[in-house]
């Protein structure tokens, strides 16, 4: 088993990365909030797996910690919080109308190509194991960005934000064998606090606007 892993680690990492990208696409097209959160958890899991693999290959002990952090935060804690939130907010079965999914997909594919193209000179410098992850990471960041743009409900927007964070962590682990642990913790803390604050926010927004649709949040503008 270990032997197999060490032989095929690079392929496996790439597989995980591709799965992350795939999930990113899936999130882009997903209308249901609940499914979206589940997809997010799946993405976190993939991230966690890939981090473990990288840790195994590179022998960086702190990456295991990083993987654990990802597991706790991205796979368990945040999805749990989000689940609780949507239950409390009573938006569990919310379905969002999306702007022309096929167009969004085409834009997404263009973004992926672009991302690979952009990081190509940089990838040359990366270690053999993680050559393509940087491109994938950038692609998933951009896809998450695109997702945020196309969503008008508050919760999916936040999920997009978190997915972007996933892409960043992938970049960190894939390209650099993980940031120093201090930083990882700091980032995790920020994300957690951020989600908590957003949770508070959801309630406040709901209380004021009777809806979590961000299209109600268009009063402040220039005339």
């Amino acid at each position: 088993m270990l032997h197999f892993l060490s032989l095929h680690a690079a392929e496996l990492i790439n597989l995980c990365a591709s799965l992350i990208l795939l999930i990113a696409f899936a999130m882009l097209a997903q209308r249901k909030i609940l499914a979206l959160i589940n997809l997010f958890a799946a993405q976190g899991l993939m991230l966690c797996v890939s981090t473990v693999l990288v840790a195994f290959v590179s022998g960086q002990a702190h990456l295991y910690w990083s993987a654990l952090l990802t597991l706790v935060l991205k796979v368990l804690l945040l999805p749990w919080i989000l689940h609780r939130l949507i239950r409390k907010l009573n938006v569990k079965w919310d379905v969002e109308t999306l702007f022309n999914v096929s167009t969004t997909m085409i834009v997404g594919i263009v973004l992926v190509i672009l991302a690979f193209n952009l990081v190509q000179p940089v990838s040359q410098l990366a270690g053999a194991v993680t050559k393509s992850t940087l491109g994938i990471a950038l692609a998933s960041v951009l896809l998450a960005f695109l997702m945020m743009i196309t969503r008008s409900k508050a919760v999916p927007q936040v999920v997009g934000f978190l997915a972007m964070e996933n892409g960043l962590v992938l970049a960190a682990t894939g390209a650099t064998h993980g940031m120093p642990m201090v930083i990882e913790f700091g980032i995790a803390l920020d994300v957690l606090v951020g989600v908590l604050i957003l949770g508070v926010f959801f309630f406040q927004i709901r209380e004021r606007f009777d809806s979590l649709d961000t299209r109600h949040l268009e009063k402040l503008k220039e005339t």
Partner: protein
Amino acid sequence: MGEMTFLLASPLVGAVVLALFGHRRYAAEVNVAFSALTLVAAAVLTEKVIEDGPAILLWEQFFVDSLNVFLVALTAFVAMTTSLFSRPYMRIEHAHGKVTDAGLRLYHSMYQMFSFTMLVVLTTNNLGIMWVALEAATLTTVLLIALYRTHASLEAAWKYFILCGVGIAQALFGTILVYFTSEKILGPGVGALLWTHLDAVKGQLEPTVMSLAFVFLMVGYGTKVGLVPLHNWLPDAHAEGPTPISAVLSGLLLNVALYALIRFKVITDGALLAASDGGIPFASRLMMGFGLLSVVVAACFLSRQKDIKRMFAYSSIEHMGLITFAFGMGGPVASFAGLLHMTLHSLTKSAIFFAVGHAAQKAGTQMMDEIRGLMQINPTVGWGLMLGTAAILGMPPFGVFASEFLILTTAIAQQPWAAPILLFALGVSFAAIFGKVQPMVFGETTAKRLPHPPALVPVFTHLSLVLMLGLYTPPYLADWYRQAARLIG
């Protein structure tokens, strides 16, 4: 070392203490006391840096040189004066029923927390921690902006959170890329993210990666600086939050974000120097472009404002653009001017927000059409606003003119094409701001008396400092700026 710990500990402890007692009657005084302690620590630290030169502290994670220590001093000072201002301001808001006790507790605690995060950004040597702290600064203020729980404030806070969060995520990507290349030279681990180390080896960093990284950092931190077209959160957040928060956002947070950008610019310039063909460096070109665009677009927006705080928020965008442009031009004079302008903008804009806060309280609205004749009922508020406006518009003898003079004259010498554009934009914003402030200050009044006397000592302290800097820069201060400018290049 001790001062450094103290500097960071004071606001942190303050945050904890105020989280417990922030709703009490004396909370405002406690807030002031902690801010004052921080200021003392900053002063001692500054004194030390002036005497002993740069220092690396606390396991290399923190360092102070003349560039950041001046911002530390400025931040501590403005945070202190703002706390003075916030004392009566928040009491009046409380008396008007706009804030609850819980809100006040949150406010005071987060105020200290915000100071803490900014001081961390400024003093940290670790670029990763810098990112974490800057993100934390967003988080601490986002709830403050939503403090009033009104439609508008919630909307503003939401936009602030999402836009800054997304923006700063890009900055993390940039930081990762920097780490990606530095790790090759400095080896993996915390050392590869320490600015002092990076600065030492900046010539060896991979230029392609660095330029890519700088794009992400520019977009990321640029969002926080409020550069056009990434600025959209800024006017909303400034207009809808409590005024002391607008003052520190405008006066400090933007500076701090710009500081982060400058640190990266130094490294990027160093990395790209080897590969450059002798033209304007890439990072400089980017900063000049963003700066110019910000100045012009902000000027356009300025002329259509109706809300007073929103207007001054746009003015902050304009000035941040000007400073970014100055750093983009680079060179001893422009960098000097940029730093001077940072200081002066910070002092002036916070003073303006103090005056604006009381003016808006008096009139019971932020709509400029309904604020009239401040001079008549409370001349000091009126004068604070009038003089602050004159100062921010670059009227001599106030210091903003000095820095604008230096920036513009350098622009004429180095980038003659940009100078007329800048001047035109400045002219438009002059017409816009002055045309709106004048009727508010002068004429017959609509304002009423306030339940608490306004705090105007901070306003006039700031303005007299600004006035002094316009006529006379103390030699040590000038040396300090020069050193800092040399660091920026």
